[in-house]
């Protein structure tokens, strides 16, 4: 799995951080998404897919 997050699209709602806290974080200065682990282990894949599904700005892309 490979994750991309579009920081231009991101609206900083933080739902990805709640869904997959080991993979996503928010920038200190403006709360915009940061990917901590762009190729996370399989155990986190479901959480990442959920994060992508609930992202209100469709800013998270997941490629398998």
């Amino acid at each position, binding site marked *: 799995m490979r994750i991309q997050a579009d920081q231009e699209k991101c609206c*900083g709602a933080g739902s990805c951080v709640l869904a997959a806290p080991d993979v996503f974080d928010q920038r200190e200065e403006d709360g915009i998404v940061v990917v901590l682990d762009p190729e996370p282990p399989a155990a986190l894949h479901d959480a990442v897919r959920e994060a992508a599904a609930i992202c*209100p700005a469709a800013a998270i892309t997941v490629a398998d």
Partner: protein
Amino acid sequence: MTTAQRTAPPTPLTLPATRAPGCPFDPAPGITDAARGEPVTRATLWDGTSCWLVTRHEDVRAVLGDPRFSADAQRPGFPFLTAGAREVVAGKPTFLRMDDPQHARLRRMLTADFMVKKVEAMRPEVQRLADDLLDRMTAGRTSADLVTDFALPLPSLVICLLLGVPYDDHDFFQERSRILLSLRSTPEEVRAAQDELLEYLTRLARAKRETPDDGIVSRLVARGELADGDIATMGRLLLIAGHETTANMTALSTLALLRNPAQLARLRAEPALVKGAVEELLRYLTIVHNGVPRLATEDVVVGDRTIRAGEGVLCMIGHANRDDAVFPGGDALDVARDARRHVAFGFGVHQCLGQPLARVELQIAVETLFRRLPDLRLAVPYEEIPFRGDMAIYGVHSLPVAW
């Protein structure tokens, strides 16, 4: 269904739609029934104009996530629920009613303040406030109005702290908020309340110029990008959205759990469920109950309908949150359900900025209340509870409880 029913012309839906007597937690049945046949359906507004209602989860996400649907309420044809609601945006719009890039520029000045780790760090403070309020509510008493003594002051105290607004002024801003959110307010009443709030917050911004603190208003002043009047407009949005929504979710969640004793028992037995239970309560109760408005700027196909450029749309998030395709058996409250895909905070780039804070407040409020008051119960017959069908944000006007 009989032939007569099938061939009868459909009763035109008028908004705001009312809930069924005896079913205060369920969305308006008139819309539910219409949506069963036509998930994208027409409704008539107060001024005789009509707009589209979008009710399916998938369609609501599609509309709210599509930049071809504008949130700019200044555009002709934008749907309003009442004349008063139109007046709210007649003056200076907040970024809630702007499109990108203007919206993103203003919103991004605030996203850091509400991000998850910032808000999680506030848990001890929110917990202390919740405990203090319950200490005071229960001292020497066995009953109280939960709205006045707990549900309303908790988020009001928190948003005041965050913004740098003196909590002592809460009667002033809570009364103006009530007028702005009442579906019964006249445009004149709305304009007066709006002006008074903006004047108050403009004065506050000016004062922060002299005496800065670490609140949001003061930091917006220090940023130097916005005039005091623009800071006041933004402050008004945060102040109202920051206390009315969580206050009503807290009181209505309490009532919903008291009315679903098996669910409450399960939550008490498994306190670790509280995070998921709050998501489920957000889904089940969806207090933004009159629809999220948008205006099509191009012809767009939604479901099996084409919404034309210039036509208004109301996204019925309460109905979307009961969509069986996403939430099987969604008319029941189930604290163990995975409800994370609810759209109670909206969807798209305008999705609630304060949602991490709302979650922390609600998790603490619900957990603390039911842990500390094991015998919590209604102090009046259920039938006497005054529901907020007359307000833009649903909930209860008061909730007399005993313990």
